[in-house]
């Protein structure tokens, strides 16, 4: 049996050193983007966006890459609350943050990690998603409170979840959801698979889902208008390209795209 006692001190030293490094970690900045003489940018842009923006932003990303050859857009779609955590606590190297509500954008703002100030670039409404054919016969928010109706909501930490709660409270409906999903797309999946009778999602989600779900509109007086905010981040590795992407989102083309995916444009 070989003698490995000599390894122990080595391991301990290595662990102590690395732990110390972790405690005092700082984010690093990467290579700056270059601006070509004709105004087009290049570089890699990392965009953190709420899950409901998946389809619209993916298209916008492709358009951006086409308009700016030399750029690559990488997306991270998840619940806005998760993204906020990733940016603030984990020091994720994002260039752009698009949040589905003010709260999560504020989280990043309070951590002083925003560069360009957050701007509202789209709005969204809530809509009830049901299975094609609406077998449960859902017509209003009140129907969601019926006995025997299985309703799925996004978890309270997720913007869509919070909005849904607001809308239900305002309408005076008591709902006991069967599940609280980690992002709004998961809510949609449960409905489209037929496991839940209804789920509250965004209008844009229903537009993106095409035939897999049907939508039941929520009247404006009961609805919650979700404001989507976008901002560039202070430690963005590709600051130029980040700003350019935000511009693209806010441009006429960008707004048209968002509109096509069911978002309301300001």
């Amino acid at each position, binding site marked *: 049996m*070989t*003698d*490995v006692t*000599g*390894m122990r001190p*080595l*391991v301990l030293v*290595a*662990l102590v050193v*690395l*732990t110390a490094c*972790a*405690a005092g970690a700082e984010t690093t900045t990467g290579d700056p983007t270059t601006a070509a003489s004709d105004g087009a940018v290049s570089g890699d842009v990392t965009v953190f966006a709420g899950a409901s923006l998946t389809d619209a932003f993916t298209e916008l990303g492709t358009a951006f890459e086409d308009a700016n050859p030399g750029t690559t857009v990488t997306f991270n779609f998840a619940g806005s*609350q*998760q993204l*906020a*955590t990733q940016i603030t*606590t984990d020091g994720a190297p994002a260039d752009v943050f698009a949040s589905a509500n003010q709260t999560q954008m504020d989280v990043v703002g309070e951590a002083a990690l925003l560069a360009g100030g957050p701007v509202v670039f789209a709005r969204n409404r809530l809509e009830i998603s049901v299975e094609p054919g609406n077998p449960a016969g859902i017509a209003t928010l009140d129907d969601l409170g019926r006995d025997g109706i*299985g309703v*799925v909501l996004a*978890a*309270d*930490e997720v913007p869509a979840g919070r909005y849904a709660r607001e809308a239900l409270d305002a309408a005076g409906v008591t709902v006991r*959801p*069967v*599940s*609280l*999903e*980690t992002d709004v797309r998961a809510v949609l999946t*449960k409905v489209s*698979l*037929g*496991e*839940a009778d209804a789920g509250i999602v965004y209008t844009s989600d229903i537009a993106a889902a095409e035939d897999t779900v049907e939508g039941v509109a929520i009247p404006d007086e009961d609805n919650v208008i979700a404001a989507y905010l976008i901002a560039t981040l202070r430690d963005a590795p590709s600051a130029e390209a980040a700003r350019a992407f935000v511009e693209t989102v806010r441009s006429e083309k960008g707004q048209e795209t968002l509109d096509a995916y069911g978002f309301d444009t300001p």
Partner: protein
Amino acid sequence: MTRGQESTAAGIPAGVRALGVAAIVFLTLPLIGLALRTPWDQVSTLLTEPLVLRALRLSLVASLASLALASVLGVPLAWLLARTDFPGRRLVRALAVLPMVLPPVVGGVALLLALGRRGLFGQVLFAATGWALPFTTPGVIVAETFVAMPFLVVTVEAGLRALDPRFEEAAATLGASRWTVLRTVTLPLIAPSLTAGMALCWARALGEFGATITFAGNLPGRTQTMPLAVYLELESNPAAAYLLSILLLVVSIAVLVGMRDRYLGSP
């Protein structure tokens, strides 16, 4: 000979030693990080929080129920795989082990398609009783059993293979019925494997996330097990999340240490 390849007096080449140290660091650093961040001073208050208590209780109940179900189904399966030879045995063993290598979320989706309200078999149940597994605690148990049972099956099968079948023959010649042989000879003699298998199975069930959230959903008190609570509370209640994480970690380590390497192979 380069310096890195020089044999030390103890016989390990220095390069190998360095890599081994790096591996140890790689594996232990996350655990140390977690331990350092856990709010130890708040433990008692956190433990009484309803969120934490519900998750703890549900995890315990569901994982133990999964263990029971996995044992009832898995031991006979292991017996069949180890002791009988039937056509398609290799395929059956591959299927029995499949959940081990399947990404848990994929497992969850598969369970939905089979046992969900609109699933292949689930719809029969739903049509007959109006009840379905998703979003229920039994659904959690099914998801956990699905991913954890292979651990039990594989370990017990190895134990059975290592057991000299002649002991069972001897017991039969003494007049013991097959059931008595199983009870008084086979199971006691594979007890180490059985225990190891059950411990692994339970630990896996306890830590299951992907299949649970996909198949059973997430609802505090009913389907929100500890791993789900960690995931969801990470942003809003990190202290609780860290505590639950460290609890899961401690349990896992206790199980592995308690098994004393038996999970590495047959006893």
